[in-house]
C-alpha cells in the first residue's frame, strides 16, 4: 500500500461522510450526524498518515522533500487544513449542520486532484529548495482554509436571512456573524504571514521581495478585501448582510489567487500547469 491508495480511500471516506451529513441535514437524526463526523475524523487521520507516507516515499526515491511542491500536493494539503479546521469547529461549537456545506469541498478537491493533476512525486527544482517554501505554503493554506470556513458560514448566514423558517435549526444570525468574524480574524494574520514569507522567499530566490507577479498581486487583492471587511466592521459598524457578502467576495478572491491565477493567468509560481 502506498500513499496514493490511501488518498483514494480517504476520498471515499470523505464522500460517505458528506453523504451522511447530507442525510443528517434533512432527517436530523442523531445517528447519521455522528456517522458523518466519525467518517470525517477517520478520513482526516488517514489523510495525515498518507501525507507523511508520501513524504517518506519521496526520501526513498532520493528526492526527499515535504509534499507541498506542486498543484496536487497543495490541493491535498488544502483538504487536510479544511477538514482539520472543520473538525475543530464542530467539536468546539457543536455545529453539525454545517458539515454538508463544508465536506463537499474536500470531496470535490480530492477527486479533482486525483483525476486531473499529475500525482507523481517530482524532484524539487532549485528555486523550490528553500525552507521558506514550507513556511509560505503552510501559512497560505491555513489562511485559505480559515477563509473557506468564513465563506461557508457567510452563505449559511445569507440563506438563513432569506429563509428564516427553513433554517431554524441553524444557530442565530449573530452567532453566525461572530463566527465569520472569528475565522477572518484567524485567516487575515495568516494570509499576511503567507504574503510576508512569500516575499522573503522571493527575495532570496529572485532578488526582489515584490515583483507584481499575478499571484502576488492577487494575494494582495485578497488582503485588501479582507482589510476592507475588518475596517467596515470595526469602524463603520457593518454587521450582518453587508459584511457576509464582503466575506464571500473575499473568498472568491482567495479562489482566484489559488486556482484562477494558475489556470487562467501566467506567472512565476510553479503550481500552475495541469
Amino acid at each position, binding site marked *: 500500500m502506498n500513499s496514493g491508495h490511501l488518498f483514494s480511500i480517504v476520498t471515499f471516506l470523505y464522500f460517505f461522510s458528506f453523504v451522511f451529513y447530507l442525510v443528517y441535514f434533512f432527517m436530523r437524526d442523531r445517528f447519521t450526524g455522528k456517522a458523518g463526523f466519525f467518517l470525517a475524523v477517520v478520513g482526516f487521520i488517514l489523510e495525515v498518515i498518507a501525507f507523511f507516507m508520501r513524504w517518506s516515499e519521496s526520501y526513498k526515491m*532520493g*528526492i526527499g522533500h515535504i509534499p507541498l511542491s506542486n498543484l496536487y500536493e497543495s490541493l491535498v494539503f488544502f483538504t487536510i487544513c479544511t477538514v482539520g479546521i472543520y473538525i475543530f469547529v464542530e467539536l468546539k461549537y457543536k455545529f453539525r449542520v454545517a458539515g454538508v456545506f463544508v465536506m463537499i469541498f474536500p470531496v470535490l478537491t480530492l477527486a479533482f486532484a486525483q483525476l486531473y493533476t499529475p500525482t507523481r512525486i*517530482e*524532484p524539487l*527544482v*532549485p*528555486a523550490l*529548495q*528553500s525552507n521558506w517554501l514550507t513556511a509560505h505554503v503552510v501559512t497560505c493554506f491555513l489562511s485559505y482554509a480559515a477563509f473557506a470556513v468564513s465563506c461557508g458560514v457567510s452563505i449559511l448566514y445569507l440563506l438563513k436571512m432569506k429563509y428564516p423558517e427553513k433554517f431554524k435549526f441553524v444557530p442565530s444570525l*449573530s*452567532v453566525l*456573524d*461572530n463566527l465569520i*468574524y*472569528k475565522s477572518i*480574524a*484567524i485567516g*487575515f*494574520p495568516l494570509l*499576511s*504571514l503567507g504574503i*510576508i514569507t512569500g*516575499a*522573503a*522567499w522571493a*527575495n*532570496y*530566490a*529572485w*532578488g*526582489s*521581495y*515584490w515583483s*507584481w507577479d*499575478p499571484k502576488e*498581486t*492577487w494575494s*494582495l*487583492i485578497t488582503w*485588501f*478585501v479582507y*482589510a*476592507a471587511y475588518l*475596517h*467596515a466592521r*470595526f*469602524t*463603520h459598524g457593518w454587521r450582518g448582510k453587508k459584511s457576509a457578502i464582503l466575506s464571500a467576495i473575499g473568498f472568491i*478572491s482567495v479562489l482566484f489567487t489559488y486556482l484562477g*491565477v494558475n489556470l487562467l*493567468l*501566467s506567472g512565476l509560481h510553479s503550481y500552475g500547469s495541469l
Partner: protein
Amino acid sequence: MKKIVNFFASLKLTLFLLIVLALTSIIGTIIPQGLNKSQYAQHFSPFVFKIFNALNFFDMYHSWWFLTLLALLIINLIFCSLKHYKVTIKRVYDKNIILTPQVEKTIILKNSFSIPKKKFELEKVEKFIKEKLGSDKFIKNEVNGEIHYFLNKFRYSNFGYYIVHLSLIIIGIGAIIGGIWGFKGMVNIMEGDTVDKIMLRSMKVYPLDFKIKCIDFDIKFYPDGTPKEYKSLVEIIDGDKKFQKEIKVNHPLRYKGITFYQASYGTVGQEVEIKVYNRISKKLLFDKFIPLKMPIPLDNSTKFVVLNYSDNFQGFGPAAQIAIVKNNMHTHFNTKPFIIFKNFPDFDLKHRDGKYYFQLGNANFKYYTGLQVTKDPGVNLVWLGCFIMTIGFFITFFLINKKYWIRIKEDKNKVNITFAGSCRKNRIGFEKEYYNKLEEFKKIFS
C-alpha cells in the same frame, strides 16, 4: 483646512481606497506587464492601444495614478491614526473604574446577587480575580462603604492596530527608499573572467567598486533530467581583500549592500568530441573536438553537422544531435537528424544504417553564469515592518481587551454583589465567557 483634514482622516476614504486598489490591481494581472511597447501594439487594436498606453496599463503598478492611490492610503492612515488616538487612549486608560449607576447603564452584561454575610470573604474575591479572571492588575477602590474592583485586562491591546498601521508606514518607507536608491541589474560572467561593472534594467552601465570573478559554474541534474542545482563559484576582489563564495539559487551572495543572485547561465565556444567509425570494418576514421553547426567533411560526398548538444538529454546523460549532409549532383539534402549518447556508445551502431556510425566523447566548452544584481537599501526596513506587523496582529487579534467590574456592598446580614463585564470585540464569544465566569464566581461563596 479642517475639511481637508477630515477628508484625509475619514474611514470612508479608507474603504474607498482599499476597494479601488483591489479592483484596479486586477488590470495588471490580466494585461502582462512591462513588455515592449511594440509587442502590445501587435496585440491590441490601435485605438485600444492608445487608451491603454495613456492610462499606463502596460506598467500600471509603477504608474502615477496607482502610486498616488498607495500614497493616499498611507496619508489616510497617518491622518486617521492622529485623529483617533484620543479614543484609543480612553479605552486603554478607562476612567470608569467605579461601577456607578451611570456606568452600569452603559454595560449590557451585568448581574447582581446577594449572599449571606457569613459566607463572604474578601480574599476569595481577590483570589478569584487573580486566578480565574487571570490578572492581578486590578484596581481596588472604596467609595461610600462600597468596595469596587475594576480589571482592564490586556488594555494595551487597544494600541495593537496602531502597531499594525505603524508597520505599514515603515514598509512604505522601506519600499520608497528601495525605489529611489536601489537598483536591479544583470551581469554575465564567463568562467575565468572578471568583471567590475553591471548592466542595469534601464540599460545604463553601473560601475562596481570591487571586482567579481567567476571561477566555475556547474549544473547538477536529478536522474530524470530535472535540474537539481545551479552553482557558481565566484571570487570577490576588493583591493587587497579576496575571498571565494558559492552562489546558488536561494543562496545569494551579499557584499557591500549589493546582492548577487543565480539567475541564468549559458555556454559559449562549445566543442564536442565526435568519433566516426566505418560501420563494416569498425575502423576509427575521425576523432576530433568540433564546434556546433559547422559542417565537417567525411568523404567527397558526405559531411556531418552537430546540430545540438545537451548535457543531459531526457535523463540519459550527455547527447548530441547529428545530421548528415550529402552532396549529390550539385544539390544537397539532409538525412533525418539522429541522436547519439555518450553513455550508450553502441546506440548509433545498433539503431541506424549507413556507411558510418558515430560516438560521442567529451564536451569542451565554457559556461557563463548569469547573475542578477540588486541593491535595495530599504529592504531591512521592509522586514522590520513585517516583523512589527506580525506582532501587531498578535496583539489586536489574540490579546483581546476585556473589562470586568465587581461591586460589593454589605447590608445587615447579607452582601450584595454586582458583577459586570464588557468587551468591544468578539461580543458573542465574550458573552459565553462572561456567564462562565459568573457561575464560577458565584460558586466560590458556597
